[in-house]
């Protein structure tokens, strides 16, 4: 618990509220995304998160140059300059998880749902930073420390509905090299990237919008699994769908049972957010997001098949429809 509590030290350095910032190129969230692409750096990043088993801490090395980023932990992840994304596992070999040709639509502006305000200053990894808070209504969702010189995100805290720190990604060391070495993408990889599709056939569904303001920005398919990618201006949210049913014994053991519209679902935490797993109408759903769990529950509830089983009338209607279309 200690590291997460220590993460709240940033609040001690906050100052008075300033007016909300307009969403534009001046938006600090946009600046932070751009800075991670534009600046070369090396350093160490600490990841803190909690799940049912307790609090966890891990450290990874990061290196970025010429638009390519490499994260080296137990896994190695690479965001190549051409936007292809690779993963190298412990056992060796690279997987291509995101193809440079798989595009997604523009995200909605964060200002339609969130308010970002600069609240003060801090020092992170021995570098001066400005502190920003991102609020959804009156609820504080994230607290960020952006490097004063480069706008890099030096620290990002995700907070729960009661203000408690749930996850932290924070530099513990950062260096801006004079002559950065550019990471080379792997010469060979196994293609596991989903292909972009434009529509899904029943029983799958991918509504253009979900509750909580999530808009669909991408739709992909790989190996019989459909991924609908959504964004609400701040968080990404994926809905994975595959045919079949969930046997209780086959559900990953670390899940916490939750109710989803009267249907049983399982919730998981991981270093990057939450997972929600459930089964409805012959389809297994897995929702993955860095958003708060309450967002996942509400977004899941707005999916057509969530939370209800087919009535006898609905079954008959579908059967008659299939007969007519024979």
């Amino acid at each position, binding site marked *: 618990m200690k590291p997460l509590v220590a993460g709240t030290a940033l609040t001690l350095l906050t100052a008075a509220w300033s007016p909300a910032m307009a969403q534009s190129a001046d938006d600090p969230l946009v600046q932070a995304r751009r800075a991670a692409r534009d600046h070369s750096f090396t350093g160490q990043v600490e990841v803190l998160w909690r799940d049912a088993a307790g609090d966890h801490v891990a450290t990874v090395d990061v290196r970025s140059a010429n638009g390519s980023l490499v994260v080296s932990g137990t896994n190695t992840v690479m965001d190549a300059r051409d936007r292809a994304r690779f993963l190298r596992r412990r056992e060796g070999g690279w997987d291509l998880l*995101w193809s440079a040709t798989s595009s997604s639509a523009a995200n909605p502006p964060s200002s339609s749902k969130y308010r970002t305000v600069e609240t003060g200053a801090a020092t992170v990894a021995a570098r001066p930073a400005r502190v920003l808070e991102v609020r959804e209504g009156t609820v504080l969702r994230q607290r960020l420390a952006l490097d004063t010189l480069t706008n890099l995100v030096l620290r990002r805290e995700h907070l729960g509905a009661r203000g408690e720190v749930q996850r932290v990604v924070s530099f513990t060391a950062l260096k801006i090299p004079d002559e950065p070495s550019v990471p080379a993408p792997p010469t060979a990889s196994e293609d596991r990237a989903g292909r972009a599709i434009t529509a899904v056939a029943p029983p799958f569904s991918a509504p253009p919008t979900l509750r909580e303001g999530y808009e669909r*920005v991408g739709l992909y398919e790989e190996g019989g699994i459909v991924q609908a990618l959504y964004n609400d201006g701040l968080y990404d949210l994926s809905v994975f769908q595959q045919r079949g*049913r969930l046997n209780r014994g*086959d559900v990953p053991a670390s899940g916490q049972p939750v109710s989803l519209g009267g249907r049983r679902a399982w919730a998981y935490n*991981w270093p990057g957010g939450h997972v929600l*797993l459930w089964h409805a109408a012959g389809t297994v759903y897995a929702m993955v997001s860095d958003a708060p769990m309450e967002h996942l529950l509400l977004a899941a509830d707005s999916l057509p098949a969530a939370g209800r089983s087919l009535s006898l009338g609905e079954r008959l*209607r579908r*059967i008659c429809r299939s007969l007519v279309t024979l």
Partner: protein
Amino acid sequence: MTGPPSSGMDGHLGDRLSGLLDGELGGAQADEARRHLAVCPSCARELQAVGEARSWLRHLPPVDPPAGFRERLLAADPTLAERPRGAAVVPLKGRRAAVATVAGLAAAAAAVLGLFPAPDPPAEPEVTRLVEAHATAGQGTDPLSRLVPVGVPVSFGR
């Protein structure tokens, strides 16, 4: 025959049930049919079943014919194209038979597929892979915040 007063050859209403539901029976015939229904549980049950089947069919959403359907139909019977639009090409009794056939097929399919559906095959979602696919596909946060968690493998247990 000792049953209730009959109006059909077998003593029951038969096709007149559809006529009654469609309002196609004349006043006297309709009154006679209603009197028969009042004393014949068999016809009353059949009237209810036919009414429910028609109700299900009526609530089906509009369905466009499959691509090429019209062309295939005309190829099978070129005289159809010469008939005036909206002309009745199927005798009334035949149309009722067609509706009854579809309703029967729907009921049979319901019994076989809907009421006793085959169980879905079990699925074991690879949550770790899904998490990786999500984290590498997203665009919302800066790449550092998005990718750093993937560098830390996590087991969801099995």
